[in-house]
Structure formats: structure tokens, C-alpha cells
């Protein structure tokens, strides 16, 4: 052990650590730990000054092992491993002690205790690093194909960017057509561009692109593999229409006698037939048969669509198919669900006819919608003369969702404009705070103020049809405190629009689990870093874009789709990616062939070699989780970088007496 020379670096992280932990004392004390040849403290280890210091010390003082006591390895392990590598030291001879998240941040009121804990953590890291072995990263090839899950605007953007760069993309969409929520909208804020006019060309491009394979009416069922080499099983739900013959002429749905309320695309505001295409600009143009509602599937009779189809494309006997895709990277762009306004009973949605949700209003005001764009009450004819728009429905409320849904202020302003333009009605906006935060948004708010909307600052308490006076008869009465006056107000209106918040998809947890990504408290997918890495996830090769990561509007979704594509293109162009060599390995000479590890492995990385009667780990599939290491009854499986010796040394280190005096040591001049 005597030839080993450890360098210890204690980071102040500005006041983050030094405000609580006595970092100078920790660095002084660390001189007394085994084999420590250099121990220093530094303002910011992650800055170039800190990194240069490590590099120069390795060269000048012949350091063989490095310990940095600073933040979480998630944050800067890569940074410091890089510094070691540049100075010619194997990066796995580096160890990080987390004295920020594990000491200063969690014990802000106990400086002595936090300092003691920091010393123990540094000691653990020093003891451990002495046992660490040099490791070489695994190089794996990257397949050029990409899977994009979700055909909304974020997914379409990601697919087009990658396809335009010349690489193949599979775009999987659950519904019969791509387009997502944006296809349901009428206008887009703040420019009032027609949503269809700017979306349809992109949908068409995605459908016609030689590098994009559209898999609509399809769902991912299984994901295996690792970055660069994923295998994905996709269930292609039976359309019951032969896409090679169908021309999308529309005869089938014109003749179909079965009408069904369309709860998806029309948000329950209109009907579709049992064989249907969700909307005229759908991509692909082929219809699907909804077997749960089709008369033939329920009674065995009808087949009218088949009779009238000019190309004989109807296939009643079609069954679901499975396709296995080999892809290198994955983008999740699965979008959001609208908050169910029934969960706030005092707003009366579902009970009071003329209370609408924002998505219902989008369909109402859409020229291609059920009323051809006429803004009318639930009776289908009466124009409202007064309309209330309620912000923050299912947002900023600990009883439902604590977060702000980010888009509702702006979509409410858009509704103000559309209602006034189409009906001339008086519009009231009930808001808590106005948050028009992006480019051109505040100006749009000013325009709506000019147009005469009344803004009432107060979260609505209740919507009722119980009148207190003759002028309230037959109206919906919106009750709120006008907080700028400090008085209760009862505002009678004909129509109420609830700006319902954005929620994670109902199946987001399951999807997250399948793709190995995390969900935060709010249920949206978790990014690798909230500021510096917003489209990557903790799983290499899996990226997120759009509202599945958190509520966001169209410009932000497009930006994220493009960002995810850029990240993936970078990986594809590198052709190879380095994987952490932290893998399990089996000492085959001592393996009894009991196969317990084979079934325990959550990644199917261990196979049994029949001819040798031993188990073997596929290092490319292994994620180094350690399950097999613990399970092996003969204790002959080793997790690289987490060996028995390393873990025991770490425990020995953390148990040393931290109250010993710092030793005398030879001064090391600053570099």
C-alpha cells in the first residue's frame, strides 16, 4: 500500500458547502488518512482552476488515487473523471464524497455535526479508493435507427429532424392518426395562426418522408436492450382496413350506420362513425374500425362498409400484429391528459350543461368541429351573451395538482379573443395571477385588455344555477372574491369555460417503467438535469420531449423535440458509445451452475452455458445493479467497482474517529 499516493480535494461550492461545513478543517484533517499525499480545499472544484489543480498534482506529486469531496456524482463525477484521464490516471481510480447533499444541505443548522459527517465521508472515500481497480469502458456500436413514441407535435418534430439528417425513424402513435392535441385546436397563441395550417404540412412531411416509418394505431409493449441496441416490441392494433388497397375515399364512413360519441378527438362534443378517420387531414388517411362499437362485431350483421368499399379493402378478420424493431435511441413524446374537471364538484362540470372544458371549447370554436366553429351553448343554437373563463382548474391547488399548468393563462386569453370575435359576448376572466411569460405573450395580454375583457382577480369559489335575483334567473352564477376590491362578487353568465390543467398521461407510470425512466412527484417524466440536461433521462439512449416532461406549450414542445433529435444525432454520428464498465462477472471455475442468478437478473443479462454448466454475464446487457452478486449462494459473482473489499473498506473508513487532531504534514505549495 505504501506506493499509493492519494490526493484529497475539498470543495467549498461557494457557500453551499463552506457555509455549513468547515472545509479548511476537513482538508487539514484528511492529511491524517492513509496514504494521503496531498489535501487541499478549493472554492469551486468543478471550475477549470479546480480541475487543473487535480491534473497538475497528479503530474507533480505522482498521485495514484483521487478523492473529491463536493456534490453528487450525478453532478460532477464525469467532470473529475475527465480531469484524472487527462493527467493519465485511469478514471476509475477516482472516488467522490458527497458532502453537499449528504452533509451541508441536510444539516444547515448543525455546523459541527455536518463537519464531522463530511470528515467521515471523506475518510470512507479515501479508504475505498485505495481498493479501486483501473477499469476500461465498454465500447458498443450505435444502431442508426431511432424510435419516437408519440406522434404529437414534439414527436413529429423529433422524427423530422432525425429523418432529415438521413437516418431512419420509427414513429409510433397510439391513435389512428398522428397530430396529437395540436390537431384538435383552432388557433394558436399569441399569433392566432390556425393550428391545422401550421401542423398539417408537418404531419404530411412525416407521413411521406422516406426515412420515417409511421406505425399508427400501435403501442409499444416491451423494451429490451441498452443504448445503441434496443429491441422494441410494438403491437399494431388491427385496423381492419388493408392499407395497401385503401384510398381514403371516405365511402365507408359515409355509409356506416353506427354513430358513436367521439370522446377522443372531438372531446365528447361530436359524433363519429364506427369505421372512422379521426379528422379530415389525418395522416395516414386510412380509417380504422372501432370493434367495440361496430354493429358487425356486436351482432354479426351489417358489413355495409365492406359492401360499398370500391377497392375491397375492408378486412373483418384482421388481427393484431407484433413487430420487433431494432433501434439505437428512443424519444418519448407521449404528451399529456387534460385534468378531469369533475374532480372539482363545486364548478359543476358534468352537472351544469353550459360549463365547458377548454378542450371542448377548442372543438366548439374549430371551423372543422361539430358546430363548424360557431360558439354556442350546449343546446347547439344559442349564442352566449356573457362568458366566464376560469383559470387554474386543477392547477396550483394542493387538492388536485400543485404545479402551474403553464399554458392556461395564454389559452384563456386566446379564448377571450375568439369568444368576443365570434359572438360579441362580454367576457370575464377569473385568475389568480396572470403569467404570460414568453415572447409576445404580454403584448397579447395587452391586446385582450384593449378588446374589453374584464379581468377579475380571484380564484372562483363556486359556479351555481341557484339565482338570488331576477337578473340571475336562468344564468350560471360565478361566485368569487374580487380580491382587488376585497368583496364577494356574483357574476351571472350564459357560459363558463374551465381552463383545465395538464396532467401526466394516465398510463405514464407504466410507460416510465417500461422505458426505464423516472416520474417526479407530479407524475411527469424526470429529465437528467432540470436545467442543463432537460431532454435526456437517467437511462442512456432514452430521451423525453414535449408535455410528457411537464406542462408546456407548442413552441417549447417543438424546441424539445428538436433538442432530443440533436442529442441523438450526436450519438449516431459518433457511431459508438462508451458504457460504464461497472458490470458483474462470474468466476466460472467456481460456478456450481445452480442458475439462481439467471432468473434473478432484471435485465436478462445472464445466460447458462450448457456445455460448461456455468452461468455467464453479457456485459453489454448488464447494468451493474448487483442483484446477482447478492443472490449467488457461492459468492463468486463480483460487481466491478463494487467489490467486497471496496465496500468493506468504505465501511471501515466511515467508522473512523473523526475527532482526532489534524496531523503535522509537509506543506504543499500551491500550484
Amino acid at each position, binding site marked *: 500500500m505504501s506506493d499509493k499516493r492519494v490526493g484529497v480535494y475539498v470543495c467549498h461550492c461557494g457557500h453551499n458547502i463552506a457555509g455549513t461545513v468547515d472545509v479548511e478543517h476537513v482538508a487539514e484533517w484528511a492529511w491524517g488518512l492513509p496514504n494521503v499525499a496531498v489535501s487541499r480545499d478549493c472554492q469551486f472544484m468543478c471550475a477549470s482552476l479546480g480541475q487543473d489543480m487535480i491534473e497538475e498534482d497528479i503530474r507533480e506529486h505522482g498521485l495514484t488515487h483521487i478523492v473529491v469531496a463536493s456534490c453528487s456524482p450525478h453532478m460532477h463525477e464525469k467532470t473529475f473523471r475527465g480531469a484524472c484521464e487527462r493527467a493519465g490516471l485511469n478514471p476509475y481510480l477516482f472516488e467522490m464524497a458527497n458532502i453537499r447533499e449528504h452533509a451541508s444541505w441536510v444539516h444547515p443548522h448543525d455546523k459541527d455535526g455536518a463537519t464531522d459527517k463530511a470528515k467521515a465521508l471523506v475518510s470512507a472515500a479515501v479508504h475505498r479508493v485505495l481498493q479501486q481497480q483501473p477499469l476500461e469502458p465498454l465500447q458498443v456500436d450505435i444502431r442508426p435507427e431511432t424510435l419516437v413514441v408519440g406522434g404529437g407535435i414534439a414527436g413529429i418534430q423529433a422524427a423530422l429532424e432525425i429523418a432529415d439528417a438521413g437516418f431512419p425513424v420509427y414513429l409510433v402513435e397510439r391513435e389512428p392518426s398522428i397530430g396529437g392535441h395540436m390537431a384538435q385546436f383552432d388557433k394558436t397563441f399569441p399569433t392566432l395562426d390556425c393550428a391545422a395550417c401550421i401542423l398539417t404540412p408537418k404531419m404530411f412531411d412525416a407521413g411521406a418522408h422516406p426515412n420515417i416509418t409511421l406505425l399508427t394505431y400501435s403501442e409499444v409493449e416491451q423494451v429490451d436492450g441498452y443504448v445503441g441496441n434496443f429491441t422494441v416490441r410494438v403491437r399494431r392494433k388491427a385496423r381492419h382496413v388493408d392499407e395497401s388497397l385503401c384510398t381514403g375515399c371516405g365511402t365507408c364512413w359515409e355509409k356506416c350506420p353506427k354513430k358513436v360519441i367521439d370522446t377522443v378527438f372531438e372531446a365528447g362534443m361530436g359524433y363519429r362513425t364506427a369505421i372512422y378517420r379521426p379528422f379530415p387531414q389525418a395522416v395516414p388517411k386510412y380509417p380504422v374500425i372501432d370493434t367495440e362499437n361496430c354493429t358487425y362485431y356486436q351482432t354479426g350483421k351489417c358489413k355495409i362498409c365492406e359492401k360499398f368499399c370500391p377497392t375491397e379493402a375492408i378486412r373483418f378478420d384482421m388481427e393484431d400484429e407484433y413487430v420487433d424493431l431494432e433501434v439505437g435511441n428512443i424519444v418519448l413524446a407521449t404528451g399529456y391528459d387534460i385534468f378531469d374537471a369533475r374532480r372539482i364538484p*363545486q364548478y359543476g362540470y358534468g352537472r351544469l350543461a353550459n360549463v365547458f372544458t377548454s378542450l371542448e371549447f377548442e372543438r366548439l370554436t374549430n371551423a372543422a368541429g361539430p358546430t363548424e366553429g360557431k360558439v354556442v351553448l350546449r343546446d347547439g343554437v344559442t349564442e352566449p351573451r356573457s362568458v366566464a373563463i376560469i383559470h*387554474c382548474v386543477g392547477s*396550483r*391547488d*394542493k*387538492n388536485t395538482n400543485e404545479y402551474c399548468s403553464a399554458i392556461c393563462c395564454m389559452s384563456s386569453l386566446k379564448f377571450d379573443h375568439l369568444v368576443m370575435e365570434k359572438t360579441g359576448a362580454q367576457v370575464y376572466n377569473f385568475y*389568480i*395571477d396572470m403569467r404570460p411569460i414568453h415572447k409576445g405573450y404580454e403584448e397579447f395580454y395587452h391586446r385582450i385588455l384593449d378588446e374589453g375583457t374584464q379581468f377579475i*382577480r*380571484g*380564484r*372562483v*369559489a*363556486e359556479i351555481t344555477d341557484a339565482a338570488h335575483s331576477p337578473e340571475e334567473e336562468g344564468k350560471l352564477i360565478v*361566485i*368569487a*372574491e*374580487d*380580491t382587488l376590491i*376585497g*368583496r*364577494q362578487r356574483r357574476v351571472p353568465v350564459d357560459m363558463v369555460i374551465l381552463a383545465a390543467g395538464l396532467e401526466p398521461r394516465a398510463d405514464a407510470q407504466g410507460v416510465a417503467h417500461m422505458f426505464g425512466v423516472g416520474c417526479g412527484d407530479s407524475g411527469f417524466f424526470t429529465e437528467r438535469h432540470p436545467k442543463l440536461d432537460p431532454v435526456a433521462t437517467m437511462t442512456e439512449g432514452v430521451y423525453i420531449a414535449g408535455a410528457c416532461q411537464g406542462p408546456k406549450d407548442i413552441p417549447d414542445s417543438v424546441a424539445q423535440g428538436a433538442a432530443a433529435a440533436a442529442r441523438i444525432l450526436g450519438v449516431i454520428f459518433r457511431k459508438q458509445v462508451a458504457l460504464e464498465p461497472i458490470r458483474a462477472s462470474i468466476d466460472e471455475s467456481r460456478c456450481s451452475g445452480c442458475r439462481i442468478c439467471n432468473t434473478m437478473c432484471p435485465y436478462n443479462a445472464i445466460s447458462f452455458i450448457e456445455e460448461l454448466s456455468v452461468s455467464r454475464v453479457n456485459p453489454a446487457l448488464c447494468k451493474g445493479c448487483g442483484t446477482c452478486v447478492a443472490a449467488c449462494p457461492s459468492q463468486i459473482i463480483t460487481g466491478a467497482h463494487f467489490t467486497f473489499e471496496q465496500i468493506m473498506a468504505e465501511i471501515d473508513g466511515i467508522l473512523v474517529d473523526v475527532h482526532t487532531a489534524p496531523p503535522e504534514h509537509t506543506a504543499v505549495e500551491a500550484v
Partner: protein
Amino acid sequence: MKTSQDLTFHDRVVALTPGGEALEQCLQCGSCGGSCPAGADMDHTPRGLFAMIRAEMEDEVLRSNTPWYCVSCYACTTRCPQQIPITDIMYTLKQMAIQAGHYDHPHATKFSETFIGFVEQRGRSFEAGLATRYHLYHHPTDMVRLGMMGLNMLRRNRLPLRPKSIREVDQLQAILAEAKAIAAKETYR
């Protein structure tokens, strides 16, 4: 630790209310003021009062009629997006106003005192006795109108004439005595 002398008015309201820390989270959205069935009679809505507490307007807050009009229906509390125990804060303010001798209409406290008197004596509220005793003392002229309503309620079996007690009421009284002793020690004024 802060001593009671260091505590601001806001801090004392928070400290005296179970779960009162949530008051710091008030968004000033007005859900409480909009939901309050007695809001029209209050000189400040609960939201307004919370802003005044934050601004340390102790005198104005303790002289406000707002807590005294609170009917403890908990509509505000169930709807508050920040889950602030608003009704409980109203009780705290009533308690502080009584202790400060700040409230200008002494009758307001009498109803509570009469009500609590029955609860202490029997472990239950007794509406017929409460209404009679309260009005005899404070609003004798109103007795005729209320008498008619009482008769109507009697006819519909809505007004039991004989008070009911809980079993072992002496144990409840012991608990209440203990609670009062603790409260006397913990009050910050």
C-alpha cells in the same frame, strides 16, 4: 429558539393554530372569501385578514368582525388550494381578540360562552336551552319571533325539549380542565 417576546403577531397566530404554518403559503387567491357564506357581512374577507396578519396589523385584525361571523362550515378550508386550516385560524383570532379585550361587541362572545357552558355541563349541545338562555340574556325582544320558529320545529320533531348528557361526563370535565390548564401555560400573551 425564539421566546414569546420575539414572536411577531403573524408568528403567534401560526404558533397557536395546529397546522398554522400553512398560513405562510397563502396565495391570496380568494377561494376562502368567495366560498364564505357569511362573507358579505364581514368587514374583511378571510384572505384580506391574512394579508393584514402578514402586514402585522394586529389591532385591526383583532378588532375585525370576520372571525365572529365565521360559522365554522369549513367551506373555505376544504377549498383552499394551499390547505390552510382557515377555520382553525378564525378560532385562534377569536381567542386572541378575547384575551386582548379588543373585540368591541361583547355579545359576540356570549353565544360561544353559553354554548360551551352546556357542553361542559353535559358533554352535548342543547339547542332549546342554548337559544332560550342566549336570547333571554341578550335579545329578549326577539323571543316572540323565535318562539314561533321553535314551535314549528317542535311540531316536526326537530327540537328535543329535554337535554341529553353523555355518559361519565365527569371524565370529559377532567379532560377540559386539563386542556384549559395547558392552554393557560402556552398562550403567548
